[in-house]
């Protein structure tokens, strides 16, 4: 029964990673860049949510919606100012810029909100459903997290696969030049991708801090890195891949924490990642690109 408990906690943690990883993988798929500032957008979202709920006593859902709006705008602004001018630049320059943006956001947060940890009030009441005479307990936030993740996944795959903007996004990810010549506005599509990714990051921030309530300006960076890792693990650029990779990473992390050692858990997680990538370099569901010669 404890096994099942750990498993569900792992799925829940993986769901948070999955929501974060969507932002990484979509941006990578379409703009072909790694947005390392994504983790810090999570942190900004969590702070907005924190201030809305704890300081201004707004209802939780208002806080989350506010965080989503602010992060969406932040995502678009960051893309416009930092990445758009580098559209033609080598990918290394964009990568360094992304790391720069990441530090900028972290340090701005440090200036605005200081390094003192904030205690994040969960977005739904604490408590748990108990099964089998209390042997299995699933907290509300766990259920909310998993449900949110599933909902987002379904909505997003419908959007990407069936809608016109989704088709535009997939077209851009394959060939920006051709897409442009077919009347698809590539810049708007990239902005949209950043907007969606950052909006989702805000939701992830609220869920993450509800489960792990200490909020500091560096809260977002480690989950960000892990979600990115999981996205690579599942095959970067592929949304189902990111989903699968994140769930697996979450479960592995919780198991490693529970059965091996909580200090070693990250080492175990990354060791598994290395092994998977040695066997399948494109990730679990990644497509190997074949060059025609």
């Amino acid at each position, binding site marked *: 029964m404890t096994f099942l408990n750990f498993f569900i906690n792992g799925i829940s943690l993986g769901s948070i990673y999955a929501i974060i990883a969507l932002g990484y993988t979509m941006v990578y798929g379409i703009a072909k860049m790694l947005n390392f500032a994504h983790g810090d957008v999570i942190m900004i979202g969590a702070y907005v949510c924190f201030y809305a709920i704890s300081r201004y006593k707004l209802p939780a859902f208002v806080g989350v919606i506010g965080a989503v709006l602010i992060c969406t705008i932040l995502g678009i602004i960051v893309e416009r100012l930092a990445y758009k001018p580098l559209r033609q630049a080598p990918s290394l320059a964009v990568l360094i810029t992304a790391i720069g943006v990441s530090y900028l956001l972290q340090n701005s947060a440090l200036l605005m909100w200081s390094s003192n940890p904030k205690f994040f009030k969960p977005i739904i009441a604490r408590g748990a459903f108990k099964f089998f005479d209390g042997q299995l307990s699933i907290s509300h936030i766990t259920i909310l997290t998993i449900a949110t993740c599933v909902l987002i996944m379904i*909505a997003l795959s*419908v*959007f990407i696969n*069936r*809608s*016109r*903007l*989704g*088709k*535009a996004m*997939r*077209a851009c990810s*394959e*060939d920006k*030049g*051709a*897409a*442009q*010549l*077919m*009347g*698809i*506005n*590539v810049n708007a599509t990239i902005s949209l991708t950043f907007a969606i990714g950052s909006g989702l990051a805000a939701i992830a921030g609220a869920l993450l801090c509800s489960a792990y309530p200490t909020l500091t300006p560096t809260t977002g960076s480690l989950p960000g890195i892990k979600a990115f890792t999981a996205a690579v693990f599942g095959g970067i650029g592929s949304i189902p891949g990111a989903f699968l990779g994140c769930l697996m990473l979450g479960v592995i992390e919780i198991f490693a924490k529970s059965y091996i050692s909580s200090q070693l858990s990250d080492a175990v997680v990354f060791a598994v990642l290395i092994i998977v990538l040695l066997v399948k370099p494109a990730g679990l569901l990644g*497509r190997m690109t074949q060059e025609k010669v």
Partner: protein
Amino acid sequence: MKRNKTKLVPVPSKAMIPDRDVARAPVLECINLGITLGGIKAVEDFNFTVGRTEIAGLIGPNGAGKTTVFNLLTKVYQPTTGTVLLNGQDTHGMNTVQVNKAGIARTFQNIRLFKNLSVIDNVKAAMNNEMKYNMLSAILRLRDYRREELAAHHRALKLLSIFDMQDMADLRAGSLPYGAQRRLEIVRALATNPSLLLLDEPAAGMNPSETAELMDSIIKVHEMFQIAIVLIEHDMSLVMNICEGICVLNFGHIIAKGTPEDIQSNPAVIEAYLGRKK
């Protein structure tokens, strides 16, 4: 005697517009169009007019600047000199997307389909501008989403059926045979509702029977949509058979313009292709 008369038409000439078009403005007018790429004048003094329902050919040896002209027309490159009028409207300062909205669609010399999208999604991706529903209705599948997607679906199937490709609609575009990929590019270009269709070597790599089929399809498209078509092509039988006017480029300059008969007997053209007679 006759040959000398039709040699070199230096300015945009109404002669290239078929009779039925003369009353209306040409769909495309290039005036002194030129571009310098890396210090080399890739195209210079390009004066070219295409009538509203004309099929024109753009031919010339490799490296003559034919694809560069297409890139100029679609604003992949911004021209350094000259003007492009599309339906009488100056395209100066427009970007690729705006030019496409204004009515130019093209295919590519090396096929550039969205390979991992299905055939029908390739066509629908090109209809992006037609559909207006927003993100929320896409996620919640509201009525305007369903209505517009259904309309687009039907139109895409109809376009595919011109090339007998409706049965391939759900296949992955990259998995199609070569000839079908070339045809799909034309369908995708047509999906953007162009008034001018630019085909960059549509018959490249095709065998004679495929080329003949393609020729029929181009004529069919031309008759169905009543649009202007400019094609770059090395297959002379195709060019001479379907083009009403031909423009020959060499080293970025127009060396001849005229009807297929004029071009075939034009000494400058023969020289460009075969070298000077010794």
